[in-house]
């Protein structure tokens, strides 16, 4: 009947956030011993594990080798238990290949790949629980994992989605909001320079609204970057205490 009201007159969203507020972002770096770098990140109820291997020798087809920089190989997958409906998710379906490709493009823009010619960097991300903003959570988690692996990057890559409801841009959509109709825009940003690593939108939006929506998404990305920064510094501190002893 009457769909859900995504934004109340008082300016509160379904889960009690205001339009520009992000979900709670929590993260930890270095959660896996055997990988070169790893991170676990929660963005609200979206939970992601990211693992980085490399740089190492290119595996598989030698034709993939790039002589001036490293190849970034991304693999995105969702756990069977990640959504409300338990579902087997075969590898390489259209959706996850596309997501993998997007991640690859994002990180090619951020990692200083030219430092490692003829090598490969693997980034594996797994959605443990999906509640909207999968792409952005993956990017944020992978950033932390790359940093953990000690692979040089230009800057963090922070991603966030923004949607458009009743002429108001909403930051960091949750699943209910994403599926509640309307357009959702995902931006991956190098926050310090303000460069956009990836911009993705797959519904129609009028041109006039694009600027406000971008603005909202970018502000949200900067919000995410603050949180990530915090996490990285904390991690460094902890590590130094450990090694200091």
């Amino acid at each position, binding site marked *: *009947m*009457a769909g859900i*009201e995504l934004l*109340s*007159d*008082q300016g*509160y969203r*379904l*889960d*009690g*956030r205001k339009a520009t*507020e992000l*979900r*709670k972002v929590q993260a930890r770096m270095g959660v896996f011993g055997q990988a070169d770098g790893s991170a676990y990140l929660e963005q*609200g*109820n979206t939970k992601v594990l990211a693992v980085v291997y490399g740089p190492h020798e290119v595996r598989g087809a030698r034709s993939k080798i790039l002589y001036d920089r490293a190849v970034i190989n991304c693999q995105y997958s969702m756990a069977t238990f990640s959504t*409300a*409906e338990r579902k087997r998710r075969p590898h390489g379906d259209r959706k996850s290949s596309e997501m993998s490709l997007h991640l690859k493009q994002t990180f090619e823009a951020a990692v200083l790949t030219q430092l490692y010619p003829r090598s490969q960097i693997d980034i594996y991300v797994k959605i443990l*629980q999906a*509640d909207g903003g999968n792409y952005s959570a993956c990017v944020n988690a992978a950033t932390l994992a790359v940093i953990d692996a000690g692979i040089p990057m230009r800057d963090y890559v922070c991603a966030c989605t923004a949607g458009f409801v009743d002429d108001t841009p909403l930051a960091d959509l*949750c699943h*209910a909001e994403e599926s509640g109709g309307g357009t959702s825009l995902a931006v991956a940003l190098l926050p310090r320079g303000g460069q956009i690593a990836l911009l993705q939108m797959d519904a*129609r939006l*009028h041109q*006039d*609204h694009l600027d406000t929506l971008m603005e909202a998404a970018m502000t949200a990305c900067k919000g995410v970057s603050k949180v990530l920064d915090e996490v990285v510094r904390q991690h460094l501190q902890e590590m130094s205490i450990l090694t200091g002893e």
Partner: protein
Amino acid sequence: MLKSKTFVKKTRSGGILKVVREHYLRDDIWCGSEVCVECKDESPVLEKDPCMESSMCTFPHYLIPDTNVVLHQIDVLEDPLIRNVIILQTVLQEVRHRSAPAYKRIKDAIHNKEKHFYTFTNEHHRETFIEREPGESANDRNDRAIRAAAHWYSKHIPDSAEIKVVMLTNDRLNKEKAEQTGLLVYRCDEYIKSLIANPELVDRLALTSDEKNEITSSKILFPEHLPLSQIQSGIKSGKYIQGTFRANRDNFLEGTVFVHGEGDESTEILLQGLQKLNRAVHQDVVAVELLPQEDWVAPSAVVLQDDGSKGEDEEEEEEEEEKKLQTKQVHRDSLKPTGRVVGIIKRNWRPYCGMLTLSHIKESTRHLFTPADRRIPRIRIETRQAATLEGQRIMVAIDGWPKNSRYPRGHFMKNLGSAGDKETETEVLLLEHDVPHLPFSQNVLSFLPSMPWAITEDDMNRREDLRHLCVCSVDPPGCTDIDDALHCRELENGNLEVGVHIADVSHFIRPGNAMDQEAASRGTTVYLCGKRIDMVPELLSSNLCSLRSNVERLAFSCIWEMNDNAEILNTRFTKSVINSKASLTYAEAQMKIDDRNMNDDITKNLRGLNKLAKILKAGRIEKGALTLSSPEVRFHIDSETHDPIDLQTKELQETNSMVEEFMLLANISVAQKIYDEFSECALLRKHPSPPPSNYDILHKAIKTKNLVIHTDSAKELADSLNQADIEGFPYFNTLLRILATRCMMQAVYFCSGLDSDFRHYGLATPIYTHFTSPIRRYSDIIVHRLLAVAIGADSTYPALMDKHKQAALCNNLNYRHKMAQYAQRASVAFHTQLFFKSRGILNEEGFILFVRKNAIIVLIPKFGLEGTVFFENKDKPSPKMTFNEEVPTLTVEGHTFNLFDRVRVTISLDASNIQHQKIRMSLLEPVIPGVSVPLPEAEPEAKKAKLDR
């Protein structure tokens, strides 16, 4: 960012799905009170000294109603007296879930600054959020949440302020629990009754079924409605059918359920008898069960009105009527699928206008209310001001319809004024047809250009200067909203240049602002007799946009280059500035054309136009455009009393058709242009060709005259209509055209991206839109905007290019147009009544338009008036009648009435029922003993009337 977070798991079953949602609790939600010092609210809503004088609550207080109070007592809450109410989010959500209209109204109340309604987002407040306990129902949890919020408020508001919080609930359990925790709780009616300032408010209290002081002894009249779950499973299994209930206007014991099938298919199921209707009210969405085929009945052609002054206990008579209705033997073919209502899926009640029928018992506070809309059953209401409400038009809302009550129960909402009063009746008419007619709000007016207004340099630069052209407008007399003007001139190459200039309303009404929204919602200007309900504020409609003569006005022009055969060689569109040289009436223009001595520019202009128009029209008719007819009436209104003093059917002149031709041409040209540019989102107008079965009546009718009519295509229909003539019966053709008109479908607006059939049947053109009347139709404004974008004169905006938004807009426009038409007809009917009231009894000649089972419908050409002659009379034994549906004919006491028969009738005003005053017609000729009335003393009256002229 103040965010404190806890997680709440909400499971939602229905399939096995576990939905986990986050729920943030905040500590930055303010209480909204002016007295509060803790909250950092910048603009608190609740007043410092909330003053609602109540004998029970003598202290200042805020109100917190629970969900049911908001749902059922919204009429009371909307009263300006009730202020400083805290609407909890829990309540708002529940209301939203349960009733869309109530939700809208409460939201309106919240937005109204005067009301000081505050929405407290309690579900996200750290201290008022509660989790559902195991075993607790959702409703109980919500009740508890409301109590928790009320509790928080009573603690939160500083004692020094001496403001208390009063919770209103009608739920006894909830009340008890609240009292235990020390809250101030009252029942809603208790509280309202204690209000000192306004005793009248009590009447507006909705009767809730919670009050068990009903007479329980009364017998159960209706079968129980099935619960929704059962209905849903029944619909799934095909046992029940879902549809919209439509009551029969002429017979209160009959109705149909309109079932939307797949695609365009839709069927109707007939319902007969009170039991089968089972408390369905017009427009409700109901579930019906089909009866076995042997129980199927045919729709009765009897006209039956529930206007007897029966009390509650006099139902026997009705049952008899019902029997009469059912026992009639009918032909098997005419049997229709028949069913009975098993449950109501969604009520579609709205406030109804009507009048009070006083109870026979003087002291009684319960009265029956008779709605003006005959499809709505009478409603029982409780009021203590019955004496003052007698003879007044009032508004009433239905609260419910228990199974032991013959009538639904409702409550009084508003007094509109005394019945029969022109103002009141117009108001009723507008309300009943859902015509927005309130004066424009300040917000809307703020978007008007400031006066004095003049064309700026900038405007001039952007527009083509066409002030030198000899443009003139031709309109009906007294027209102040002139939206079109024409010009015609000869070009150097011998061709003609013809221009249609339309008022550039979209220049003033910018997309999205309050004025635009208001216009979009109104959809159209509504013309009633002697009154016009504008779509745009008057400054625009009658001044800035009106293309009056000898002033410079902004226009949107469509200019063609044509040769002498009216073939279009070139079309262009431009925004322009024009200066009309003359505003003529149709008659004036006609005179200029006819007067050979006149040879000024304007006249030459008109003659050129007229010549082209004739060629265009011939071409159109050749293609199969229909010329249909409907009796249109014009009133001569007394300039002082505004009473109609005479009425005449509208006359059409050549110039009418001239203007019309060019408007059609402009519309078609524009339609093509905007469709070419925006194939997905052009707003067009189509007129679907009617299904062949629509013509049955026409075929039957014409057979009686031994003529044939071809209806296979518009062209054939037009041709056969042209040929159908009977010697010595000049009006026959017009009658036929009137009948043909009734066979037609409604023309509608639609969005080109969502439809594939664009044809306009009546005009015989493949594509059509409305472009020429932006002052009075919103569709034209949209078309203007589209065209402006197409020629690069204006910029686009999101909603314009969104086909779904367009489609929604089209729906509203179609609805408003239909309603405007109905309102217009109702207004004509009312004025006709006024006219006959002043005229007394008249004898006139008429023709039979339709034949019913117990009546004939007669058209009086002189007045364009349609009326019913009943052959049954309450106080007389019914004459012997035989109805032959095939032909159709009705034989009364040996005399057979055929369609198109000429009869003489007396016309008088039947004012016995003040609410439904009607024109009564009785038969004079042919003389049938016991049926026709003797020639009354009408002649002298008529003579007198003639003398008056």
